[in-house]
């Protein structure tokens, strides 16, 4: 039995189909990355799992039991993107009030708060009002506030947005600790490198549909096959933009050609010729295996969504 299973979730808001038969599973103890462009349906999906969105169709089960709209399941811990803590309360006070509200027994509360402070590396600052904390400290506190009732599934909405690399590392260490305890994690992020490096599996959602899911290797196989990516940077921006062969695109800087190439030998000469003739020469040329960024762009396109 999967800790979390979403099947055929559909939800429409007026003219917008927020969820369109979205389906995913969260396995025990895994860190699943949920990626998608802005407005793709990530937040709707998270809200539906949290019992805050009534689906038009489809089912969501937590531990084999269907989610009832309006009821947040105790097995669930939710870390919102906003810093949902009280700035005038100290870190300890925030943990105490949220622990009490989430049903932590009074006898256990003090010990759990102490552990949470250690977990978030905030023990030394426990008595300070949160408004004096750095962004990273607030993020860590925001996470542990959702963990006091020891949920088996944790939904994290952009938990590392706006924090420095040190805090980001610390946050992923916290998540790794949770996984060791068997907690299943569903994380949304726009940091594709992070998702690539940290998530065991990735689900890409677009226009309310799951367009791909699996490990990075599986995603690459599903979207780009065996293709590799060639990046050729011309000496100066192309003026005017040259006609590029299929599979090649000009980056926003106006002088970098990025192309997926199945047979490098046949595609590369044409691309280098274009860069030499129209771009005043070649500054750099590289080839690499497909990354999550390439998969993501291939599956969701380049056009802006908002």
């Amino acid at each position: 039995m999967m800790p979390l299973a979403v099947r055929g979730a559909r939800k429409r808001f007026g003219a917008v189909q927020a969820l369109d038969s979205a389906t995913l599973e969260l396995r025990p103890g895994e860190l699943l990355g949920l990626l998608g462009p802005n407005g793709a349906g990530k937040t709707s999906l998270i809200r539906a799992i949290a019992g805050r969105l009534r689906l038009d169709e489809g089912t969501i089960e937590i531990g084999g039991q269907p989610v009832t709209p309006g009821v947040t399941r105790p097995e669930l811990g939710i870390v919102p993107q906003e810093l949902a803590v009280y700035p005038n309360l100290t870190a300890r006070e925030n943990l105490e009030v949220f622990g009490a509200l989430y049903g932590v027994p009074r006898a256990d509360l003090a010990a759990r708060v102490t552990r949470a402070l250690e977990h978030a590396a905030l023990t030394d600052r426990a008595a300070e009002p949160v408004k004096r904390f750095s962004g990273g400290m607030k993020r860590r506190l925001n996470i542990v506030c959702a963990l006091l009732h020891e949920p088996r599934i944790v939904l994290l909405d952009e938990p590392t947005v706006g924090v420095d690399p040190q805090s980001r590392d610390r946050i992923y260490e916290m998540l790794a600790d949770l996984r060791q305890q068997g907690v299943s994690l569903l994380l949304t992020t726009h940091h594709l490198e992070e998702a690539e490096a940290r998530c065991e599996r990735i689900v890409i959602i677009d226009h309310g549909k799951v367009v791909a899911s699996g490990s990075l290797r599986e995603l690459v196989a599903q979207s780009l096959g065996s293709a590799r990516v060639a990046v050729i940077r011309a000496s100066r921006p192309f003026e005017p933009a040259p006609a590029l062969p299929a599979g090649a695109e000009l980056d926003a800087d106006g002088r970098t050609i990025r192309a997926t190439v199945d047979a490098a030998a046949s595609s590369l000469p044409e691309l280098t010729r274009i860069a030499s003739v129209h771009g005043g020469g070649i500054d750099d040329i590289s080839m690499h295996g497909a990354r999550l960024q390439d998969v993501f762009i291939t599956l969701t396109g380049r056009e802006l969504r908002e």
Partner: protein
Amino acid sequence: MIGTLVRIGWLNLKRDRAAQALTFLLPVLFFSIFASVFGGQGGDTTSSIRVAIVDEDRTDASRRIAGAFEKETALRLRKTADPDETDAAPLDRAAAEALVREGTVPVAVIIPAGTEQQIAGSGLVGVKLTLLADPSDPIAPQMVQGLLQKAIMTNAPELTITSGLQQFEKFIGMTEAQRQAIDGYVAQLKSGDAASTAGASGAMAGFTIDVVNVLGGSGQAEDLVAFYAAGIGVMFLLFSCSAAGGAMIDEVDSGTLERLIGSRAGMRGVLIGKWAFIAMMGFLQLTVMFLWGWLVFGLDLWSHIPGFVVMTAFSAAAGAALGLMLATASRTRAQLSGLSTILILTMSALGGSMFPRFLMSETMQKMGLVTFNAWALDGYLKVFWREAPLWALWPQVAVLSIVTIVLLTAARLFARRWEVV
């Protein structure tokens, strides 16, 4: 450059409906309200004063006096214990005093026993009417004194004439023919044939009026302190409750509300918890206000503690519910600020926080009863001015309780948009 900055301001104003309402609509609205409150508008420009009348003499002369008062359009007389029952027993002094004490009428006039004898003996000069007055209304007794004089002059001139002639005859003397002529004229006056041309203009009716403060307050200045402590206290209670309710909107923005709703408390628990806190804060705020009144202005708080506690508790409960309702109905802090300013200032003006309701026209007084302030203030005035027992507060307590329940229910309904969609 200045033109560009003006354009930015104009575009912002053009697209901000709340700012437009606050800039253009609010001043007009307040002008209208204050013009109505202070300008005596609202339908009844001929506001009359309610007066209870007790005829202890029950003679022809005393009935003539009472009849004269009854003809005075500026006075609305109440002669019986039951106002709807004309055949009901006439008021006695105790019943009239009770009406003044409970605030049903601001003044009661007592025509004492022996009035006819006094008139027969020494004319109106010896007559001494008693005015039982409610000091919470400092205007009505003064006006009633003047109106009583005018009523006698205008509506019962024969009494004045008879009184004056008796004095004339006593000290100077009259012939039989003169007396017959005068008796004929007085009869004409009694029957009304002589209209009101009694020629008494400028003369005094002759009787004296003894004003008795039935509430026995220790002083008008102190009474006014109680009024302003309650009036200003209730107005600021509403402002602070609305501001505290606004924390809900901040919590929506910060995400803490989402976290609270997801907890065991749920939305209902969150609302009740917030209402309880705001009500306690309001109770404390009003207590501080009255304590300050006691400490600095000599307000007699300690002998009114039970009534004060009851009124403060129920006012704070209703104020907190109003604050929550406004917060849940508003989408942004700016919206809440505009909405609460308009509503609270309007209610405070109509409900008597800024200007006593008893000095407003009757229509405005009735309109005031739709406001929270009027009921809260009426309760406080009962406690501090009328020395009313606790049970007498039941209408105010009942209305404030209903207001609390209705507003909390509305807040619960408005808050649904933050729950499941």
